[in-house]
């Protein structure tokens, strides 16, 4: 059964993974991905690259449906038991957690693949938008062509960016 949560609050990775596989003795593998807010200044060293905050907007109603549909698609492709997607919205700061995708399966291969597929799908098909507050002011983040390419690996044509 798919679990999708869009929330302002932070999440606790250990608690979420424990809950996801609780009482399911079929599970032999749990794979998870956590996306976090990075401060580009910490990478480039340029003060102008500072990310002070990141604000996430979404399309209530559509977001949940789009993610549920992508989990159904993942079930058609991979042999896994449970999938959990948590995506935060609102104002976040560098180092904050943004997104969690977690998958359980009997063996590691299927949950690794399903987890990566779900993230690639989410990046180009789920209606979220990021706005960064920088020393130059606020600016909307541009979509990346590399994210379309990532989804194309799974045989799905994305034309988001």
């Amino acid at each position: 059964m798919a679990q999708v949560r869009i929330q302002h609050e932070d999440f606790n990775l250990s608690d979420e993974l424990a809950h996801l596989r609780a009482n399911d003795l079929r599970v032999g593998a749990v794979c998870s991905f956590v996306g976090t807010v990075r401060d580009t200044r910490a990478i480039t060293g340029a003060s102008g690259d500072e990310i002070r905050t990141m604000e996430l907007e979404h399309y209530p109603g559509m977001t949940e449906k789009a993610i549920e549909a992508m989990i159904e698609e993942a079930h058609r492709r991979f042999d896994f038991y449970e999938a959990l997607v948590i995506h935060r919205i609102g104002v976040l700061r560098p180092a904050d957690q943004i997104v969690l995708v977690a998958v359980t399966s009997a063996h590691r291969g299927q949950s690794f693949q399903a987890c990566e597929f779900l993230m690639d799908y989410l990046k180009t098909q789920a209606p979220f938008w990021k706005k960064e507050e920088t020393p130059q002011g606020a600016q909307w983040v541009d979509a990346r062509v590399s994210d379309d390419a990532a989804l194309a690996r799974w045989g799905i044509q994305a034309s988001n960016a």
Partner: protein
Amino acid sequence: MNLQVRYFASIREALGLSSEMVESHARDVAGLLNELRARGGAYAEVLAEGRPVRVAVNQVMATPSTPVAAGAEVGFFPPVTGG
């Protein structure tokens, strides 16, 4: 017919509007886009041809040729950047 049109992110900001009821004669998304552009001003600018505008009809990703029917919810937004 009436359509519930919703705007998100940079498009919402540029129009200063998150949703509106639109009286439309459009058969598809492309037709609705043309009607909105014809209003001029910010609409003509942010929805201009060649701009990266994405669309959903009844909360499912759509294309310019997707039909629109009375009562449909049509969302316009820039390329998505979540994750």
